[in-house]
């Protein structure tokens, strides 16, 4: 198995502003991290892949099939799971409903039972409303929800943002576990340590372009690059 997501030369414009300017990437089998300062277009790229934002040019393929120009629900049905920035849990639904509302592409492997097994903490809180969870729990729910679609490829937008530090390690091992099951991952992450723990390779984005591809380990060591590209 192993899914491949390939983005070629996509551009996104908001009015006269060019938000993505010829972005290309290939995400195959191994997790890929995407790093960059705030506002350089990382979230827009995620949305563009999901069909939540229209692209002006370029193509997006999943396993060789075009998904650009598709509606978000069609993109999801093709096998891309989305963990949005800020988690965006359905606040008026219970934890269980948050998982049931999803329209899975296939019944297996992430059945509801399997998800309860994997996320025992959510299982305990299944009748709670989404808004009653802590930040870390909400993040788990967002991941569980995306897994419930049984995707080939996951897109995670800042999964550790706003999560209590003690939770971060749990999340990291959880995400790493998921990747080991063969699901592809495009991970947008500000926290380089997290990015390095999950992905070997990172793309660096500046002003709507991808400026370099580098091993996450070398980025961790390169303070100069961190300052220039990430503003750290």
């Amino acid at each position, binding site marked *: 198995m192993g899914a491949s997501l390939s983005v070629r030369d996509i551009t996104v414009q908001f009015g006269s502003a060019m938000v993505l300017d010829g972005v290309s990437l290939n995400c195959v089998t191994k997790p890929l991290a995407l790093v960059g300062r705030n506002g350089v277009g990382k979230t827009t790229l995620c949305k563009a892949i*999901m*069909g*939540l934002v229209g692209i002006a040019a370029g193509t997006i393929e999943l396993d060789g099939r075009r998904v650009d120009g598709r*509606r*978000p*629900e069609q*993109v*999801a*049905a093709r096998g891309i799971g*989305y963990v*949005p920035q800020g988690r*965006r849990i*359905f*606040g*008026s*639904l219970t934890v269980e*409903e*948050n998982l*049931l*509302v*999803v*329209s*899975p*592409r296939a019944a297996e492997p992430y059945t509801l039972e399997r998800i309860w097994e994997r996320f025992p903490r959510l299982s305990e809180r299944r009748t709670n*409303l989404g808004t009653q969870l802590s930040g870390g729990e909400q993040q788990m729910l967002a991941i569980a*929800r*995306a897994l*419930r*679609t049984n995707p080939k490829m996951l897109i995670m937008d800042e999964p550790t943002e706003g999560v209590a530090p003690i939770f971060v390690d749990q999340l990291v091992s959880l995400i790493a576990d998921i990747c080991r099951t063969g699901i592809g991952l495009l991970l947008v992450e500000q926290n380089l340590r997290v990015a390095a723990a999950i992905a070997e390779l990172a793309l660096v984005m500046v002003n709507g372009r991808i400026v370099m591809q580098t091993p996450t380990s070398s980025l961790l060591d390169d303070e100069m690059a961190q300052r220039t590209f990430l503003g750290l």
Partner: protein
Amino acid sequence: MNQLALVFLNGITLASLYFLVATGFSLTFGLMRTVNLAHGSFYLLGGYVGYTVSEQTGSWVLGALGGGAAAALGSLLLHQLLLARYDGQTLRQALASIAVSTIVADQMLAAWGAETYQIEPPPQLDWTIVLSPIGGYSFLRVSTLLLAVVAAILLWLLLVRTRLGMMIRAGVDDSSIVRALGVPILSVFAFAAALAGAMAGIAGVVCGSVLSLAPGDDTHFLLMSLIVVIIGGVGRLSGAAIGALLVGLLEQFGLAYLPTYSVVLTFALMVAVLAIRPDGIRGSRGVA
């Protein structure tokens, strides 16, 4: 004291009508971010069709079903042919629905004329109930209240107990994420549009039986729906209920005690709510 109770009763029975009309408007607005300014037209269309059907068949129930069906169909057509094309372009949708409401209003005038219609209510409901402190009260009006309560319960069950309802609630919370989770939201939208139309149409038949039907009612009930939604909050069943209650009560108390400015009162309440809680009383909370 009697009068106070009577006016209160009048207020909540009128609120039932507003609730029936406004709920669909609120749900579609919350779910699709579409302000369907033709909603009032479907209310009136339902009433007119209901009148014609019940005249032809002699059955009020058939009239209500016919009116509801006609309005549902109209609302569904408007959504599928026009509004769905401009998904996300909320202003364009609003403008298109204004245009449609203008056309529909004029065509209804051509078809049914400018006369005032009253639909013959089912005789089982048309009697006077004796409520001990007040005296006689029209059971027909009480039955609108009952109908609204039944409708609210059914809607609540739909929203809370079914998967479709779950999708609707999730859609009101965050429709783009629902889509990204593979939910076939367009079918949900179409269903919601038809449901909203059906409720407006049935409300038209009920209102045509308890009150009357006349040109201009489309605008009146559209405005009332707007106010109910602004006051109560968008996309929430409880919001529509609270909004309708406040508007209905205020209107009736206004008519009884301050008739000159009764219409203004409703709007003043709206402005006050806006100033204090811009999202409405039940804004940004649970859908039910």
